[in-house]
């Protein structure tokens, strides 16, 4: 991606560098959303169904963590994964895996907090029916998560939006290495610092287009699913 090129040219000519960057962006962000969902959905659902001292505090902290600054998350993971840090022996710093971990940290609170709200609302509706059916705690979580699945798509999309848009965390733990850990957002940051603003904004538009596409696919899937399952 050197010389006098525009983002449009890169898209139209199928520039392999651009496609690699787009692919890595999607791989990292979608993997992070997946990991965050595996953690955040059960956690949020459990939080919705349990009552314990300090629960309000946990909810407030969880909601606040939705605004966790990416650079702080990145720094925390950096210190954790650095060769001088506790998990340095894994050798994960400056790899896509490190970026997935950092974004998982960013996205999990979003998915958990939105899941908690959604499941708690549904719980109010289902409570009597599930009690009458003598459903145990694990069954309740599973039932509510499954029946809230279409609403939870929105939580996943919010998490994906966060992951796909952030640069602060992944540039620290990924290092923006050309061809290895460079994503759309870090490439945009780099082109901006090179003063190639037209390419930077062009890449930005490509990124926005991809995010819109993903959201459209999710919306379509949700609509189709609702039509099928009510």
């Amino acid at each position, binding site marked *: 991606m050197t010389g006098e090129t525009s983002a449009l040219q890169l898209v139209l000519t199928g520039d392999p560098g651009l496609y690699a960057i787009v692919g890595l962006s999607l791989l990292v962000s979608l993997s992070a959303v997946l990991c965050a969902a595996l953690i955040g959905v059960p956690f949020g659902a459990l939080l919705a169904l349990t009552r314990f001292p300090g629960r309000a505090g946990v909810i407030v902290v969880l909601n606040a963590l939705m605004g966790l600054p990416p650079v702080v998350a990145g720094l925390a993971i950096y210190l954790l994964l650095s060769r001088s840090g506790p998990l340095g022996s894994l050798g994960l710093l400056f790899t896509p895996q490190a970026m997935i971990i950092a974004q998982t940290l960013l996205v999990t609170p979003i998915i958990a907090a939105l899941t908690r709200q959604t499941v708690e609302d549904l719980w109010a509706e*289902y409570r009597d029916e599930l009690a*009458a*059916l*003598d459903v145990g705690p694990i069954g309740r979580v599973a*039932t509510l998560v499954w029946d809230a699945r279409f609403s939870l798509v929105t939580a996943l999309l919010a998490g994906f939006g966060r992951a796909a848009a952030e640069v602060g965390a992944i540039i620290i733990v990924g290092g923006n290495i050309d061809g290895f850990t460079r994503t759309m957002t870090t490439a945009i940051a780099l082109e901006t610092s090179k003063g190639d603003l037209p390419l930077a904004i062009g890449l930005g538009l490509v990124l926005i287009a991809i995010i819109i596409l993903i959201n459209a696919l999710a919306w379509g899937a949700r609509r189709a699913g609702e*039509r099928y*399952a*009510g």
Partner: protein
Amino acid sequence: MRAPLADLPVVLANATVVAGAVTILDRVSLTFAAGPPTVLIGPNGAGKTTLLRAAMGLTRLTQGEITWGGRADAPPTRRAILFQLPVMLRRSAAANIDYALGMTDVPRTQRIDELLALVGLQGLGRRPARRLSGGEQQRLALARALARDPAILFLDEPTASLDPAATKAIEDIIRAVAARGVKVVMSTHDLGQARRLGGDIVLLHRGRLIEHGPAKDFFDSPRSDETRKFIAAELLV
């Protein structure tokens, strides 16, 4: 087959439920034994729903005791309840029944189709439950309750929001269910329905049991003034 009457009789002894300053159920003693349906009547706020929930085991008593087949801690495996506004799980009609089956150890093969047929919903199994009409949803909820193969079935105003045709459909199912030996306990505001379905009638008023007797005696020769007034007021409407 399991012992069909494991949860019977349901015995309420001085059942009292207090919420804050309000006594919702006031020292009610009542026995639901095998036999024709028991119908609860009484004005709004009489405590009918609370009585049904308490008998189901969903509402804790403030005082008094309930036993199911002689046990105070029987899990609700052989009893079921149909709420006034049943919640349709966000799944297909068949999956709603399957869900209730999954919570028991009833064999599932063919049971779904049988139950759908019993409530007249054959062929609608694949429909999303929330896309069914109000009457269909009520019947599906009934099928779901029956999926638990209950010895006793509680129904909270099962036809309150239904048109006459849908009401008749529900009543037919209730009769069929009762004929199979399931003890039905239901509340209603419809005295005609109470006459049509009730083996015995319970009148509640302000949380207290006013009168309990066989339907014929209850309507033809009521023993208390309140019962007479209630029947008269209802018949005047």
